[in-house]
C-alpha cells in the first residue's frame, strides 16, 4: 500500500481507534469472565456480600454440576471415608454423592437434537437450494420470501399449535419432535444461505459434467457438493448454534426426556437455593463449543447472521 494513500488512516487515528475498541472489548468481556470465575468459587464465595474478586479456587461448582448429593448422618460418614477427591469436596458439607446429575443427559440431548436437526436441515436444505438455484422456478422470489417470513413468528405463537399437534402425535418431549421442529425453523435459513453459496458456483462445471455423460444427480453429487462444501459447513454451524441456544420451544415442549441444556442450566439447584457456581460451571461448559465455532466461523459470520443478505 502506498504511503500516500488518502484512505489509509493516520497513525494517530489508528492508535485512538485501537485503544477505544480494545477498551470496549475488555468491558464487554467482564460479564463473561465473571461467569467463568464464578464457576470456580465455592457457593459461599459466589454469594458473598460484597462480591469477591479474589478467592480460593475450587472445583466444587463442577462437582456439584455433575452430581446429586444427599445429607448423611455422622455415623454413616465416619464409617464410609471418602474415596476420591470429589467425594472429599462434598464431605465438607456432611453430604455424600448420591449419583450423577441430569446435566450430562441434558447436554447429550442438546448434542443429539442440535446435530440431528442440523444434519436434517442441511440435507434437505442443500437439495432444495440446489433446485432453487438451478431450475427456473416461477415465483421463486415470493416463495423464498415466504420461507423467510416464517421466522418472523414469535416462537411462543408457533408453540401453541405445535404443542397441540405434538400432543396428538405423541411427539411431545421426544428427540424426534424437537429435531423436526428445529429443522422446520432452521430450514428457511439453510435454504436461503445455501442458495447463495450454490449460485456462486459457475454453471459451466455442471454443464461440462452433464455433457461428459453424468446424470443430473451425479453432477450434483460429484461436482456441486464438493464446490459448496465450505458454504455447507458454515451454514451447518449456524443451524447448530440456533438449535444449541434455543430456549422458548425447549421450555414449552420438553419436560425431561428430550430437554436440552438452556432451560436446564438456569435452574440448577444446590442445597437450598440456586447453586451459582454449578450454574456458572454449566454455562461455561455449554458456552465453550459456541465460542470455538465463533472463532472458526469469523469469515462467514456476517452471511450467516443476516440470512445471506450481506456477503462480505
Amino acid at each position, binding site marked *: 500500500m502506498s504511503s500516500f494513500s488518502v484512505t489509509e488512516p493516520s497513525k494517530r487515528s489508528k492508535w485512538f481507534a485501537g485503544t477505544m475498541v480494545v477498551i470496549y472489548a475488555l468491558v464487554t468481556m467482564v460479564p463473561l469472565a465473571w461467569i467463568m470465575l464464578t464457576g470456580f468459587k465455592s457457593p*459461599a464465595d459466589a*454469594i*458473598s*456480600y460484597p462480591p469477591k474478586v479474589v478467592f480460593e479456587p475450587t472445583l466444587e461448582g463442577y462437582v456439584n454440576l455433575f452430581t*446429586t*448429593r*444427599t*445429607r*448423611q*448422618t455422622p*455415623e*454413616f460418614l465416619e*464409617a464410609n471415608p471418602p474415596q476420591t477427591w470429589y467425594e472429599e469436596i462434598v464431605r*465438607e*458439607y*456432611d453430604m455424600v454423592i*448420591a*449419583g450423577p446429575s*441430569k446435566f450430562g443427559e441434558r447436554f447429550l440431548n442438546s448434542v443429539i437434537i442440535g446435530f440431528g436437526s442440523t444434519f436434517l436441515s442441511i440435507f434437505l436444505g442443500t437439495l432444495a437450494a440446489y433446485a432453487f438455484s438451478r431450475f427456473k422456478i416461477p415465483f421463486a422470489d415470493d416463495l423464498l420470501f415466504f420461507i423467510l417470513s416464517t421466522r418472523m413468528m414469535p416462537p411462543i405463537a408457533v408453540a401453541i399449535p405445535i*404443542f397441540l399437534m*405434538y*400432543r396428538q402425535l405423541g411427539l*411431545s*418431549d421426544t428427540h424426534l419432535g424437537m429435531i423436526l421442529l428445529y429443522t422446520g425453523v432452521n430450514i428457511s435459513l439453510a435454504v436461503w444461505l445455501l442458495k447463495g453459496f450454490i449460485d456462486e458456483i459457475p454453471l459451466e462445471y455442471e454443464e461440462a459434467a452433464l455433457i461428459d455423460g453424468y446424470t443430473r444427480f451425479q453432477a450434483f453429487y460429484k461436482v456441486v457438493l464438493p464446490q459448496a462444501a465450505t458454504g455447507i459447513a458454515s451454514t451447518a454451524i449456524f443451524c447448530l448454534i440456533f438449535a444449541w441456544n434455543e430456549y422458548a420451544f425447549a*421450555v*414449552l415442549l420438553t*419436560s*425431561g*426426556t428430550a430437554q436440552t441444556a438452556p*432451560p436446564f442450566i438456569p*435452574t440448577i*439447584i444446590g*442445597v*437450598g*437455593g*440456586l447453586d451459582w457456581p454449578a450454574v456458572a460451571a454449566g454455562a461455561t461448559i455449554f458456552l465453550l463449543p459456541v465460542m470455538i465455532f465463533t472463532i472458526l466461523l469469523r469469515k462467514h459470520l456476517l452471511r450467516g447472521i443476516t440470512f445471506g443478505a450481506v456477503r462480505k
Partner: protein
Amino acid sequence: MRSLHLASVSALTMAAASLGSAAQAEDLTLCWAAWDPANALVELSKEFEAQSGHTMGFEFIPWPNFADRMLNELNSGGKLCDLLIGDSQWIGGGAENGHYVKLNDFFDAEGISMDDFAEATVYAYSTWPKGTPNYYALPAMGDANGWFYRKDWFERDDIKAAFKEAKGRDLAEPKTQKELLEIAQFFQGREIDGNTVYGASIFTERGSEGITMGVTSALYPWGFKYENTPGSYDMEGAVNSPEAVEALEFYKEFYETATPPGYTNSYMGESLDAFKSGQVAMAMNWFAFFPGLFADPDVGGDKIDFFVNPPQNQEGSTLGGQGISVVAYSDKQDAALEYIKWFANPDVQAKWWELGGYSAHNSVLNDPGFKDSAPFAGDFLQAMGSVQDFWQEPAYAELLIAMQKRLHDYIVADQGTAKEALDALVEDWTEVFEDEGKL
C-alpha cells in the same frame, strides 16, 4: 448407629433383589420439585428399590418452573412421570381433568387408611372435591411457611440492649405479625460485624407463586377468607375485606421498610441466599428447608433458630406441601402403586422424617419424642394446626396468575392502593369463575 445398620441391611437386600425378581422390574420415574427434601427422598427410595426390584429414576424441577413444567407435562398427556408429588393446588385440576389416578379402591384393597395421616394434610393434599372422601393423592410431605432467624445476633448483648432501648421490650421471637415487623425494622440498615444488614427476606417473586405465598402469610393471620360462604364463589367483601386491606398494607410496609434492597423478585432460593450470605436477621421460608439450614456450616447449628408464622387477629400459616399421586398416563401404574404402598408404611415414614422429609403420618407426628427430635419440629406441629391453602380449583393457575400480578403491581411496582389491588383481584377472579361456568 441406626443409619449404618440400615445401610448395611439395604445393601444385603439389594444383592438379594438383583438375584431374584428381574421379571417384572420396572423403571419408575418420580417427579417432584428440586429442593432439599427431594434429595432425602432419593436416599429413602433406595430401600424401595432393594425390596421391590424396581428401579427409581427422578425428575426434580426447581420451584419457579415446577408448576409450569409439570402442568404442561400433564396437559400434554406426557409419560415422563409415573409418580408425581404435585403441589397441593393442583389436586382439583388433577382430579377433574383425569391426570391423577383415583386411589380409593387401592387404599381399600391395601388397607391404607387416611385416618392414619394428619387431618389437615389429608384435607389439603388428597381430597377433591375438598373434604370429600375422594382421594387422588397420599400425603407425602407436610409443609408450611415459617420463619428462621440469626439466634447469635438475637443473643448479643449490644444488640439486645439497643433493641430494649429502641423498642422498650426485650428482643425475642415475635408473638405477633406487628412485632415481627418491628424487629425487622430494628435490624434494617444496622451495622453488624462491619456489614450493613437488613431486617428480613420475604417472598416477592413475580413469575410463579412467590409473592402470593408471602402475602397470604400475612393475610391468614389477619383473618382473610376467599369466600363469604365456602363453595359459593362469593368473594366481594371477603377477599377485599378491611382486614385483608390492612394485611396487604402491612406486607407492603414490611417490603419497603424491612427487607434488603434488590429482593424484588425473590422466592425460596433468594430468601436462603440472603440469609446464608449474612444479609438479613430473619427470613421467611418453607419448613422443608429447615433441616438443611440447621445443618448449614456457616449459619446453622447454634446460630439459627426457628419460629412459626406469628398470629395477629388469629393464628394462620400458608400451607405448602404435597401429596404423591399416580399419573394416569403412566404405563406402569401397578409398580407406581407399589411405591405408594411402600411409602405409606409407618417405618418408612419414620425414616422419611429422620432423613429430612416432613412426614404427615400420625405415628410419626404423635410420637412423644417428635417435638424434641429437631429444633423446628414443635413449630411444625403448631403451624400445621392452623394452615390455609390457596384455591385448589382446576382453574387455580389463572387465579394465581391474577393474584401474582395484582400483588406485584401494588407492592413492588407501587401502583394504586391495597384496596384497589384487592378490588381488581375480585374482578379478575369473578371473570375466571364466570368463564368456568361456576358463577
